[in-house]
């Protein structure tokens, strides 16, 4: 009885190995079904989804105008102190003082891409960009100023 069971076990064991080998052999002969991305070579065609959270940027239009009012909602929403809003007072043509941003400092090295600042922004001034290759040689390069030099706030954004 023991011999019968032993031989049965041996054959079922070999069969189970062959079943697995058949699956491996299938992929060995069907290269088309292998879905490997050749990452650094496919950089030109690589397209990330539009919602991908890569880094915070501030879009500017053709007249170098942004939508940021300097309300510091993003600064308050950020869990890590990634964003610092430096405000200044602009003099409007009719002689009034108006608060505007001087610099919007963004520390990419502290950012965890949690999207809370984007959600908190009442005027949609900042968005997430689809970049992901963030490595630099100097840490200071990761501290960015999001508004372009000489940029102004768009008309009609309060």
């Amino acid at each position, binding site marked *: 009885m023991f011999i019968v069971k032993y031989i049965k076990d041996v054959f079922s064991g*070999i069969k189970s*190995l062959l079943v697995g080998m058949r699956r491996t052999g299938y992929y060995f002969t069907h290269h088309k079904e292998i*879905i490997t991305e050749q990452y650094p070579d496919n950089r030109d065609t690589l397209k990330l*989804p539009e919602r991908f959270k890569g880094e915070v940027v501030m879009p500017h239009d053709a007249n170098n105008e942004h939508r940021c009012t300097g309300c510091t909602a993003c600064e308050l*929403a950020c869990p890590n102190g990634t964003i610092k809003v430096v405000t200044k007072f602009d003099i409007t043509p009719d002689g009034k003082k108006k608060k505007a941003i001087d610099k919007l400092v963004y520390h990419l090295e502290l950012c965890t891409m*949690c999207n809370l600042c984007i*959600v908190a922004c009442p005027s949609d001034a900042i968005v997430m960009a689809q970049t992901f290759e963030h490595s630099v040689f100097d840490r200071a390069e990761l501290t960015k100023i999001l508004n372009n030099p000489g940029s102004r706030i768009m008309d009609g954004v309060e």
Partner: protein
Amino acid sequence: MLEEVATSTEGDLVINVGPQHPATHGVLHLVITLNGETIKKVEPHLGYIHRSIEKMCESLTYRQFIYVTSRMDYLSAHINNHACALCVEKAMQIEVPERAQVIRVIMDELTRIASHELWWGAMAMDIGAFTPFFHAFRERETINDIMEETCGARLTMNYMVPGGVMIDLHPDFQRKVKEFIKLFRSKVHEYDELVTGNIIFRSRMKDVGFLSKEDAISFGCTGPTARGSGVSCDIRKLYPYDVYNKVQFEEVLETGGDSLARYMVRIREMHQSISIIEQLIDNIPEGDFQAKTKAVLKLPKGEFYTRVETARGELGLYIVSEGATTPYRIKFRSPGFSNLSALDTMARGSKLGDLVAMMGTLDLVIPDIDR
């Protein structure tokens, strides 16, 4: 010191597995006392990846602290975020729209499948099979792409917020998930062909790392680890949250208590998760994806506790609030910690080579143990 000398016996060998070891999937340090090749004692040393997440949460507001929990059990990040959102909603009595609830449950189950896929590949690699890892990652990549499209990230999504979800579903979501279900169903038999039926695998898993039902309960094991020993502990069934009470699924139970039983629980759980997604994906109700909440959340004074079923077991979140915008104290009851504590009982008397198989079936995620 004297006591140590008295209890130590001649011929004992103490070896260290970790903190950097391929089989521990992270910085887990195991001090193993051996007699020959037989394990006498396993002592896990923790703290190598302690980031004091609970303390960090105390200085963050109720919207901000959710992102930190993605970094605990990074393989079921959605489910961790879900626990936080649920606890804040429970405390503030926020009514979550039906659409958000359904989206959350679909996301949870997708995360569970992705987590079990990774576990399957990694565990097979631990015990010497390299191919399954790539088979598992092929399907997992599809889930990650779905997550990336809707939530904007692959692992640390931060998608659940108090009151619902952060952004509405991507228009392609339903189509992509249906494609994934089709793909999964056509590929899942490969797992059984490659690993489950394999004679070498079965003889390495059968009767290895036995954990009795009593031990599983007394160590506080939850999730597939306990269900492999026959303990009914699925939070989705026992304390349903969101729309889990409206979907049909069975709690997977195995009575073997050995590594193979824990393996089978997870394999069968993937099928259950797919069936949950199938029931919900065509019935996502229209409506808001987020309830209207105040900009600054303030929890009322008191203590709040919620629990969810992550891919590894029960995650409990305990918040003590003093009525301020930040919590006074937060405590996570993580599944990995309790499951790891059963390792000593499991491993005693077995051979050193089997320890890797046991650790593999415990599905340990070290940042979840240490926090």
